[in-house]
């Protein structure tokens, strides 16, 4: 099963991370920015699991970190979408350039 060197996993997760960063920089729509953040969090999860499985298999720490990151990402996505929908109700836009006041 370890016929693949660990660095290939890490390259894949790094590439996924910077794809997410690219999307976060270029997109101006809040929902698409949130999608880029999900890609970034997922690449971090892959890293945790790979380090756990191939370098320190005697413990399960990376696996648990990934589980907790997934739970936190779910909470974060729910709150972010609640805020985005509320912003749409008050401002009729979800573009970050137009959301430039703290309170209506």
């Amino acid at each position, binding site marked *: 099963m*370890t016929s*693949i060197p660990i*660095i290939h996993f890490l390259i894949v997760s*790094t590439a996924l991370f910077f794809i997410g960063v690219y999307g976060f920089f270029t997109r101006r729509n809040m929902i698409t920015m949130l999608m880029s953040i999900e890609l970034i969090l997922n690449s971090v999860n892959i890293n945790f699991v790979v380090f756990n499985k191939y370098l320190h298999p005697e413990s399960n720490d990376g696996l648990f970190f*990934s589980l907790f990151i997934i739970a936190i990402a779910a909470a974060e996505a729910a709150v972010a*979408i609640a805020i985005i929908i509320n912003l749409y109700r008050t401002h009729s836009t979800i573009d970050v350039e137009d959301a430039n006041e703290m309170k209506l």
Partner: protein
Amino acid sequence: MMDASVISFYAISAFLLVFGFMAVTARKIFRSAIWLLFSLIGIASLYFWMDLQFLAAVQIIVYIGGIVVLIIFSIFLTQHSGADLPKALRSRKIAAGFLSLLGFGVIAGILSKTLFVETLTPMDVDMKTIGKKMLSLGGDGYALPFELVSVLLLAAMIGCIVIAVKKVPEKS
């Protein structure tokens, strides 16, 4: 030399990277959400490839069944479906692409110079072990973060309700 497991690893990696890139560049927001869904399925299959069935199941349930569905619902609520997203500025695209490639290059360079000592010991990913560790109070247990995440989820739920029931002020 190239057995099926090696080929499937590279196939899965290519799949998730290609769909991830399409998710951040698609012009139609709904398609972008669907490409994100495919990319997350690719990550779940990578976990299956690594024999981490529980994590793969959590990935499918929470990300694909929860977050992507939530994103699709919010797209329905806030966007005119079928309309193209406004094009990103060319200068911003170039700067973002340059910075991302630069960051990727730096990290890949550091990784290629680092020596990783891989072990062949199999990891204990039995469901029983995970369940026991998750609620164990001992030195290698995760009872405290487990409770913290429970409180966090409760707080997020209350926060969402508070934001949702807020009255929209009348536009003058």
